[in-house]
């Protein structure tokens, strides 16, 4: 049988996919931290552009995938920006230029600027998060968290197994709704469906825990199938990430 390279494999073999997830995580966190210290318009725009470009070029994330991840972002950014502008105390300032007046509602220039800046920051934060999420394989991240991050194995791999169970949860939901339909009941969001979902999830969790223990999960002296090391590439990723950030901050 010929193994067909999947979308995830293309990402996994890309420079950012091969990098230690803790390196990319460090860069992402540095960017997010820097964003929270600025109210300028330019840094969030640049960070967004760099994050998207890096995910596409260095992470080989398919553009359609990235677009899907970013889809809810626009609504969030618009609503955060809009309401912050509308409810800003700057609107009450009689000396400020009024951009828009509609009955009792006044929208002043400083308030609008603050709203736009906030909206752009939301855009940047979500873009960095989505880009990091798309180039990071959960198994790779867990391995790195355990091996370099010194996270307890029981917690890390338990959480990873729980993450694997999320698609099952979706399938359980489909199956339960199908079961309702085949009993002549509406397949809607009946509370019983949710109770059933919970029961199935708990049972699956129990079984998974027993299966993990039966395969020696609790045993001391656990070895590693995937060794995650800190390589040149990772240092390079961190340095490049910080350099880009320094450049963006300097430009302002």
């Amino acid at each position, binding site marked *: *049988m*010929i*193994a067909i390279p*999947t979308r995830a*494999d293309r990402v996994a073999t890309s420079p950012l996919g091969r990098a230690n997830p803790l390196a990319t995580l460090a860069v992402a966190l540095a960017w997010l931290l820097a964003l929270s210290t600025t109210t300028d318009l330019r840094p969030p725009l640049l960070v967004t552009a760099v994050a998207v470009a890096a995910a596409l070029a260095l992470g080989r994330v398919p553009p359609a995938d990235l677009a899907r991840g970013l889809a809810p972002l626009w609504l969030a950014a618009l609503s955060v920006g809009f309401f912050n502008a509308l409810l800003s105390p700057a609107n009450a300032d009689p000396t400020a230029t009024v951009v828009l007046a509609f009955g009792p509602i006044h929208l002043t220039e400083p308030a609008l600027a603050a709203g736009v800046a906030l909206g752009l920051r939301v855009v940047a934060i979500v873009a960095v998060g989505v880009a990091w999420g798309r180039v990071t394989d*959960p*198994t790779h991240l867990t391995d790195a968290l355990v091996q370099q991050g010194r996270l307890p194995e029981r917690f890390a*791999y338990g959480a*990873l*197994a729980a993450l*694997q169970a999320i*698609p*099952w949860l979706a399938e*359980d939901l489909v*199956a*339960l709704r*199908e*079961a*309702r*339909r*085949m*009993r*002549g*009941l*509406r*397949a809607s969001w009946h509370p*019983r*469906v949710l109770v*059933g979902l919970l*029961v*199935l999830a708990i*049972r*699956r969790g129990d*079984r*998974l*825990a*027993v*299966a*993990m*223990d*039966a*395969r*020696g*999960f*609790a*045993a*001391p*002296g*656990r*070895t*590693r*199938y*995937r*060794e995650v090391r800190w390589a040149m590439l990772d240092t390079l990723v961190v340095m490049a990430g910080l350099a880009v950030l320094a450049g963006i901050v300097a430009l302002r």
Partner: protein
Amino acid sequence: MPAVAGVSFDLAPGACLVVAGPSGSGKSTLARAIAGLVPWAAPGRLGGDLRLDGRPVGSTEPAALVARIGVVFQDPSSQLVMERAEDDVAFGLEGRGWLSPAMRARVPAALAEAGLAGFERRRTARLSGGEQQRLALAGAFAPQPGLLVLDEPTANLDPPGALAFAERLAAVRETRATTIVLVEHRADLAWPLADLVLALSADGTPLALGTPAELLARHRPALVAAGIWLPDEPPPPAAAIVRPAPRTQPLPAPPAPPLAEVRDVDFAFERGIPVLAGLDLAIEPGDRLVLLGPNGSGKSTAARLLVGLLRPNRGTVRVAGRDPARIAPRELARLAGYVTQDPERSFLAGTVEADLLLGLTPDERARAGDVATALGLALDRFGARNPFTLSGGEQRRLSLASQLVRRPGLLVLDEPTFGQDRRGYEDLLSLVRARVEAGTAVVAATHDLRFAADLGGRVVRLAAGRIAEDAP
């Protein structure tokens, strides 16, 4: 009340014990205890003296106990831990302290031995039921354990897969390096491997213990009475599948459109990965149609399309001349019944009785008790039980009962005979036959050639989503 009581046996290194017993006799519970998982990992209390490798289970460090044991549980999907097949096989090796180069060599070999060569990077959640079972087996075999505990390991496998697995187990037994405890209803596959057979009775007490020959010579009537399958009644080969017996009652003339019809249907869950292509089926009242085919050939998908739970990408599906996906649930449930492969996901209430009665009309309620009794789930005994605490075979019969009680004109069954003891099987078969006599059309997707032969009727063989053979 104990699930299993008074069981005693000694198993020599490298020997093979087969555990047989009717559904609900505590076979799975016993398997967990033998695997050293009770009480520290699996719930329960253990009395008496259980020693593994000469060490008493109660006073041994759990990690040391499981280090030399490989277990495969009944439901393969809830024992796969990692996202990808190779990581999942490696998971058990990591826990047993294998070094990385040894793991790199062993993982592909273990996958190939289980018939999953080239599956290293496949996502475990996307595998078919049979493939998941193979992966669970690969994970248990990979560390080359001293004791293998297998609970119904062939339940989800297609007939060639089950046969290949039995041959592999025979080879393992030949080396006498691994002790095997095998819980299996397929006596024709399991008993030839056995040095010892432990037969349990319905209340979890031992019925007989001995070599297969001893049991057959001395205890045959007791085993048959307990509903235990025996090895000298092998499922008939595919060639022996018989034509339907002549009807004892004339049927009403078929209406102009067939009862159910699938026309040129294509279906894919993900674009570019077709599950079914160009499927054509026509089903008349009283028809019996058996869908056979290897794991992942699209049988379950065809079953779900037929009752409108999925909609085709191309082509049409009609039940009583209408698109079943657009028929209101109340009406559809009387036109068509569907028994899923995974009964746990079809339970909608906290007790057997409440689950069975859910959504029924007064007429249907009146006969619910009889249907349950006919399937060995008499409500005075089982009615107050939680469906999740039933054994695998009982769960499957409950999900069948809750569909049969509406007497739908089309009954679609997905693997109805998994985990059934002989009595459960016979109850199920006679009830389905009675419905066929009354004019119900039955479509069964199955790996069970015995059921295919006993049901009779038309055989449609699927291969890679297409009809490979349609034999009347």
